[in-house]
């Protein structure tokens, strides 16, 4: 499973970020190989439609699930059209690694 997590920084030790469209970083985590990679979010610089631009970015990189704090209506529409599972985690004091652990333990809530 290819999981993307919104993050403040570019490592697993960095804090999780609750914004979707304007998060500074995305961490891509492959649950099979346990490999991960950080992507800077270019959508933060967009004056309009950051949510759609960020969703397009993830779709183009094969995302199957994404964890963030909340998803705006446009991002939600794009991600659901792509069949990507959206998971909500409101606590921005957790690290990316802690969020991955929660996900692997099945303790994150799916957004419908």
């Amino acid at each position, binding site marked *: 499973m290819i999981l993307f997590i919104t993050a403040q920084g570019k490592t697993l030790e960095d804090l999780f970020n609750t914004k979707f469209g304007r998060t500074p970083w995305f961490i891509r985590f492959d649950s099979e190989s346990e490999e991960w990679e950080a992507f800077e979010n270019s959508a933060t610089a967009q004056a309009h439609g950051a949510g*759609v631009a960020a969703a397009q970015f993830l779709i183009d990189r094969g995302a199957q699930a994404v964890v963030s704090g909340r998803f705006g209506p446009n991002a939600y529409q794009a991600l659901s059209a792509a069949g990507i599972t959206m998971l909500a985690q409101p606590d921005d004091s957790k690290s990316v690694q802690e969020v991955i652990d929660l996900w692997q333990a099945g303790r994150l809530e799916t957004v419908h």
Partner: protein
Amino acid sequence: MKIAVASGKGGTGKTMVSTSLAASLSGQTSLSFLDCDVEAPNAHLFLKPNFTVEEPVEVPIPEIDPELCTRCGRCVEVCQYNALAKIGDQMLVFSQLCHSCGSCTLACPEHAIHEVGKPIGLLRQGKTSHGIDFLHGELSIGEPMPTPVIREVKKATPPGSPLTIIDCPPGASCSVVTAIHDADYVILVTEPTPFGWHDLNQMLGVLKQTGTPAGIVVNQDGIGDRTIEKQLADLPLPILMRIPFREEIAANLARGDLLTEILPEYEAAFQMLYRQILEQTQRSAA
């Protein structure tokens, strides 16, 4: 002659000033009144026009023909507003993000995109008992972009109207800039409070860019403090009128009366204000 009434801060008395100015001048000249505060138009509550025309305001948005589209994604690349997304075999159009720029239609190598009208609000027209040509726009609830509706209201102004009075939206952003664009004069209504002063300065910043001559009406005169009074006095703009803070005015306005109906002496005062504006614009043109 086009006079726009703006303020920066909301609730300072733009509509009170613009409607009473229109009523006071309606005996002297034929005039048009445009309520461009399309997110919350309320000038009709005071001027009470009989609306005879109501038409939708539409903006062009792209429609993609799935048969002709090869999913090349060129439209997604050129869109500066992220109003398009390519998801596998699906093309999504986010109409509320679209600014109707037409880039996607132009860029599509397959000519698979054409524009369709999407209604975002209404334009209404009618006449008041004073003989004023009254126009207003109303943005539909949930629509984020007021400027196309404002442009349609302005475009519908009867041609050759010798005097047009524009009631602007609050703030100092795109919608106000659209409303005051091509005005010959801007009346800035303010209240002598730190909020009024702060937002007035935002409007002064806009007017610095447009170069439009302007003057100030101080409403709720007497509230606030002396610091603001001093700052207002130091501005290089004339104070055209002061309207006192009085319960009698507020209570009757809330019932839908014009200021000139509450205090009839204001009719002459607004006619004088108009003469001041004419002199000031002639001077700045010379």
